[in-house]
């Protein structure tokens, strides 16, 4: 449970939830925006991970 990836998923989930509820009024719009934000967060994190993969620690 205490993996870096899970922590990142948890963080992305909470931030996506709050932003989607804050910015939209209709539940359908909130859900669409929330899913979009979550996928964007996770996708960006994974992409950055692969971009930095060739570089040593």
């Amino acid at each position, binding site marked *: 449970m*205490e993996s870096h990836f899970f922590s990142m998923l948890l*963080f992305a989930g909470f931030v996506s939830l*709050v932003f989607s*509820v*804050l910015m939209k009024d209709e539940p359908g719009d909130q859900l669409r925006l929330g899913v979009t934000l979550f996928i964007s967060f996770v996708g960006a994190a994974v992409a950055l991970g692969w971009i930095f993969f060739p570089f040593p620690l």
Partner: protein
Amino acid sequence: MGRKSRESRRVRVGVKPPQAFTGPGSGRAVVVATIAWMIPGCGHFWLGRHQKGIVFLIALPVMFAIGLGFEGRLFSFEASQPLALLAAIAEFGNGLPYLIAVGCGIGEGRVVAETFEYGNTFVIVSGLLNMLVCLDAYDVALGRK
């Protein structure tokens, strides 16, 4: 194609218009924003936005609690350390959960913990998100949304 008006948007989504305040609008809005800061989500509850209020009431304190569970630290207000001061200001945005944690002595943080930085991130961001929620409640109270 013209843009839909704010009033027609309220009708379409079934949102109640902001409550009419008898006193100066900005004064009441400040009270609503203060309540929203103190208890995340309660500002929206007071304004009739129950669905948003419930989400913020659950999500933000849970995020704060997870941050503390990850052994994140509640930074103190030290002017000599600007970055810690900024973190303390952000964490202060959590409102009552922050005050309770500080009062109970929770939030010492354990630097050597693997989840220390994640905990800090959760606590800081939950405070910042609550600040956004307060601003939203303020705008709704003023009738801007």
